């Protein structure tokens, strides 16, 4: 049980470090109790944009979102679920980071389906398929705006 967990932990940590480097910073995962991981928790140390390593509390709104998404992708790379649903995860991101996360989703969508709700151009423009939702007399309707080539 502990070996299996440690194996997973090592792989997710490696993913997290790689992903965090690609968003411009240093990040690592640490166990509170490496001897007996089930007695402790999982810590995230991260320093966005190569600032000093800081506690998660001191991060800005956008830095917290980036760190959270890096953790999500670190797990997805190891064991991709069939699909992911992300509802406006880019709301606090600046234009550059919204575009960066859009690219990450695009990459990750090779192994899993991603359904992403967003108001940001930097995200929407990267999607393969685009649906528009609108309301008519209190009832929601959906229309296909851009459908992938196979959809026709």
């Amino acid at each position, binding site marked *: 049980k502990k070996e299996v967990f440690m194996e997973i932990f090592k792989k997710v940590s490696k993913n997290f470090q790689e992903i965090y480097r690609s968003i411009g910073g240093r990040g690592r995962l640490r166990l509170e109790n490496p001897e007996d991981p089930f007695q402790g928790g999982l810590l995230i140390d991260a320093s966005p944009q190569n600032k000093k390593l800081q506690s998660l509390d001191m991060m800005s709104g956008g830095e917290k979102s980036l760190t959270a998404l890096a953790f999500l992708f670190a797990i997805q790379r190891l064991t991709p679920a069939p699909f992911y*649903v992300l509802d406006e995860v880019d709301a606090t991101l600046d234009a550059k980071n919204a575009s960066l996360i859009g690219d990450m989703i695009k990459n990750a969508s090779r192994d899993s389906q991603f359904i992403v709700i967003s108001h940001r151009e930097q995200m929407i423009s990267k999607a393969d398929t685009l649906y528009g939702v609108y309301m008519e007399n209190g009832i929601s309707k959906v229309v296909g705006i851009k459908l992938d080539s196979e959809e026709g």
Partner: protein
Amino acid sequence: VSLSEIHLKNFKSFKDTKLKIPLGFTAIVGPNGSGKSNIVDGICFVLGKTSPRSLRADRFKDLITYYRGKRAEYAEVTLFFDNRDRRIPVDGDRVGISRKVKLKGENNYYLIWYQGEVERRRKIRKSEVIDIFSRLSLGGERLNIILQGDVTKIVEMSPKERRKLLDEIS
């Protein structure tokens, strides 16, 4: 296995909508209040969310479409999967899992599969649904659904809760 379609019938602001979900990256856009997050609530509903509050409703009956002063009889959401790899233990290429809540309070799950063109359905227990989804790493406390405004929850949760996310994978 992959998600192929979402059917929303009398669920929140959706009267009868079918949404095809292709492979890859699908974006959903639309004005404020048009019903985008209601689709996410529909997915969470089928995946087994137990509290109406977590579906942004006071009671289950609030999930049923209210239109022109009248509430419909029932709400139903179905997730259809492409099951050609048979990861869902059912002999069918197209399998649906659906949840239905009635105004009178019934709250049931159904398994849907096809024999030729004929649709078959049978009621299944919630524990069977949870089991099917957990083999697919769906539902439960996994990170595959991030609700609106919730993205930083991963950073704000306790270290123990965060470790549990890795336990789920082991």
